[in-house]
């Protein structure tokens, strides 16, 4: 017994090191391997609060560009409103529930990272505003990411510039779909893989979100085709997609709440169980 204690006292430094190394390595490996299981995330009182303060200061510096972006978006919406084909037909609301299938929460990016392989954003709205994990995040130009973790006042978003994102996307004109992911190289481009060779594509075609996703509504802009790679072995294309969004400069974003999401998931689960 004495010897055991002696051993522990003698090597206390090494034992402490190994113990803490085990903890931190476990956290690292866990954060790389599982979806939405991060214990250490910036959606919490401390870092959310600090980022919000810093962002408040920083915001004043680009008020002008933010205003310009908002004015542009307003103009776009106005033109949509004025140029409706038949102004007498108003799209019907879902009269049973009395609500639209999609609802939108306005939020602000208070922290943005884009220089590592797994990038996350922090937003200043959380569970109090009804934000839940796996909701889609967009802005007026295109998609931004998917909500990963939430706290009462803040939430983290897994950016499209993240090796672990997989989003269903399609060619706008032909409905052929593939999955969107990032190879970690450039912040302006993402990759669309598993697109069937049957699809007729050319450089400059628009890529939008596909209808298979329960996170994003259909037809939200992503980007345009910049480069086409033909894989000799498989029957699939890999495309470089140039993003409409500048992911390094994000201000206000919209979080999409889909009312029928749980219904679809439950239905698909029932299908699988049978």
């Amino acid at each position, binding site marked *: 017994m004495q010897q055991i204690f002696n051993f522990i006292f003698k090597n*206390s*430094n090494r034992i*402490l*090191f190994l113990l*803490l*190394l085990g*903890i*931190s*390595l*476990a*956290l*690292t490996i*866990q*954060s*790389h391997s599982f979806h939405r299981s*991060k214990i*250490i*995330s*910036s959606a*919490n009182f*401390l*870092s959310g609060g*600090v*980022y919000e303060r*810093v962002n408040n200061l920083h915001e004043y510096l680009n008020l002008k560009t933010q205003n310009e972006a908002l004015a542009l978006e307003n103009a776009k919406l106005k033109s949509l409103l004025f140029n409706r084909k038949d102004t007498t037909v108003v799209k019907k609301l879902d009269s049973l529930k009395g609500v639209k299938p999609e609802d939108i929460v306005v939020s602000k990016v208070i922290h943005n*990272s*884009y*220089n*590592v*392989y*797994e990038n*996350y954003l*922090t937003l200043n709205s959380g569970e109090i505003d009804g934000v839940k994990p796996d909701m889609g995040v967009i802005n007026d130009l295109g998609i931004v990411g998917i909500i990963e973790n939430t706290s009462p006042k803040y939430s*983290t978003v897994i950016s499209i510039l993240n090796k672990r994102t997989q989003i269903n996307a399609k060619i706008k004109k032909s409905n052929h779909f593939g999955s969107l992911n990032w190879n*970690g190289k450039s*912040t302006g481009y993402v990759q669309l893989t598993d697109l069937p060779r049957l699809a007729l594509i050319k450089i400059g075609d628009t890529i939008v979100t596909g209808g298979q996703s329960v996170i994003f509504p259909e037809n939200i802009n992503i980007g345009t085709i910049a480069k086409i790679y033909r894989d000799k072995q498989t029957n699939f294309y890999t495309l470089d997609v140039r993003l409409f969004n500048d992911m*390094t400069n994000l201000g206000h974003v919209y979080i999409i709440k889909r009312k029928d999401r749980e219904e679809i998931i439950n239905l698909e689960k029932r299908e699988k169980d049978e």
Partner: protein
Amino acid sequence: MNSTLLVNIFRFILLLAIQIIIFNNMNFLGYISPFPYILFIILYPVNGNKSGLVAASFLLGIIMDLFSNSGGTHATACLVLAYFRPSIFKFAFGLSYEYQTIKLNDVLTPQRFSFILLSVVIHHFTLFLLEAFQLSFILDTLITTLLSTVFTIIICIIIIYLIKPNKR
């Protein structure tokens, strides 16, 4: 003793704050960012409590992880640096390490520089290796390590010269 403890606590908070508020937003060429917060580990007293340093480094790293959504990569890198610090001392300063008369907060000599260089390289390599977490990215990892090391060292030396205690 008490004043060194206070100085270290102050340094811990100050370095973390400037790292998070200023240096985390610095992205030179898009992907090179400096990490001068490891100055806390580098400047920790030579004859200080070793277990204290290991524990404090873990705390330092985990707070960085909390702010940058990086799982446990900063914590691991800081721990590795803190644990191997005595060996780096022995390598850089040779025999005089045994007498424990080294002061890092002073004019830059080749020994001091080699100590800082080795520390930064070890920390950054561990950090970027765990961040990529894929061997196919090893070349990118090495390049990022190299460039960020240069950047971090320049800022570290500037900070050391700025906070150097006045002798007169």
